[in-house]
């Protein structure tokens, strides 16, 4: 006699969704046993949310971090004001030490066509955040004579490729595009530049970044968190 496996075949999805189950699962011994096992798993997981206490001084540590970050921001904005002649909406500019021969990428965010919603330093561990519906403005300057592409990834997956998008603007100086950030996730921009054709998109950030470095130059922006 074989054991009844109807619970895992038919009942588990409903169980996991918290939906009512077929009475069979209480009357059949095999299914009842399976159900009891899953209920025990769920109870264990429910208790896991109270299993550990954070360190006793964690709240003070958070406030200390906030103080440090505020101090960093003050330093950054003082520097920014000195460097920029007009109030700019730049979130960050990626540029190498190569001067005019290196590609540059400028990103800014706006909310519904309004002003920039966030600006901050890059490279100090700060995270730029945005909300679903915010628009990411990308401007890439590609050195004369080089080929370039501008790509946006959500997580590791390619979600926008300038050269294949009708909304991408190609000019003598480079590429630009406005990309709505419609879904939550972590977005990163990749700017590629090469003497020859830039590599075809493989579809993942890691692969495209590696291919870009092999072909010429590849620059990744700090992450933008859409929450």
């Amino acid at each position, binding site marked *: 006699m074989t054991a009844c496996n109807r619970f895992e075949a038919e009942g588990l999805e409903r169980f996991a969704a*918290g939906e009512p189950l077929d009475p069979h699962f209480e009357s059949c011994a095999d299914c009842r046993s399976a159900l009891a096992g899953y209920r025990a798993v769920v109870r264990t997981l429910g*208790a896991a949310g109270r299993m*550990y206490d954070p360190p006793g001084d964690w709240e003070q540590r958070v406030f200390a971090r906030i103080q440090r970050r505020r101090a960093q921001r003050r330093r950054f904005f003082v520097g920014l004001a000195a460097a920029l002649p007009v109030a700019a909406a730049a979130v960050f500019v990626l540029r190498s030490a190569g001067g005019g021969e290196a590609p540059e990428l400028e990103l800014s965010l706006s909310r519904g066509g309004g002003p920039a*919603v966030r600006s901050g330093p890059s490279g100090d561990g700060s995270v730029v955040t945005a909300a*679903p519906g915010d628009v990411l403005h990308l401007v890439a300057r590609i050195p004369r004579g080089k080929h370039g592409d501008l790509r946006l990834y959500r997580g590791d997956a390619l979600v926008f490729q300038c050269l294949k998008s009708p909304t991408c603007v190609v000019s003598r100086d480079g590429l630009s595009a406005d990309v709505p950030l419609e879904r939550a996730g972590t977005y990163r921009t990749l700017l590629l530049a090469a003497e020859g054709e830039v590599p075809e998109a493989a579809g993942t950030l890691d692969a495209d970044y590696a291919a870009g470095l092999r072909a010429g130059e590849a620059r990744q922006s700090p992450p933008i968190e859409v929450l």
Partner: protein
Amino acid sequence: MFQELLDRPGAHSYGGNGISPSTTVQDPEEEEGAGPEAEVLQALSRGDRKQALKLLMGLYGTAIYNYCRHMLGDAALADDVHQTTFEQVFFDLPRYRGQSSLRIWVYSIARHRCMDMLKMNRRREQHIETREALPEVVSEELTAEERAVIASHGKHLARCLELLPEKARDAILQRFMGQMSYEEMAKLSGERAATLQMRVTRALPDLRRCLEQAGVAR
């Protein structure tokens, strides 16, 4: 003994008694009206961001810490990500729009930070040595006997969660530890609710087998 812990106020009663796990997983704040989150919103409306953060720390600090501990499996990493999460909460509070509960919003930040940490460790090819032999700081609210039971269960649960792929572990923790609905999980992760439901359903048998082998969930 473990059952006593589970039966304490706030414990999840998912499918405990009836023929089906009929308890709908809900945001606790939804069950009590605006509840404690209303105080946070009031503080925000007064421009008192520090007080709002303090309230959020009190409401969700422990839950988020436990989520990070189970996601990362490492106390030091969890400490760091937990604090980073609330630091980010402070700076992002002015842009909270109420599109989800504050609880889901805070979880969403914590999830991103945990995923970044996991990714960073993968990229550095550093294996996160998880799953301490015994958890060193279990909740102080527990009795000595409860602490011992939790310590034992925690070790097995950590090992079994580690065996799951990251996305499955994340979905399982959100669903049953965070007690979120699939719709809330979808808001949090940006994935489809049906995808998340399938992921949870597929992960449960592996988790059950592992915990049963360890003698935890029978």
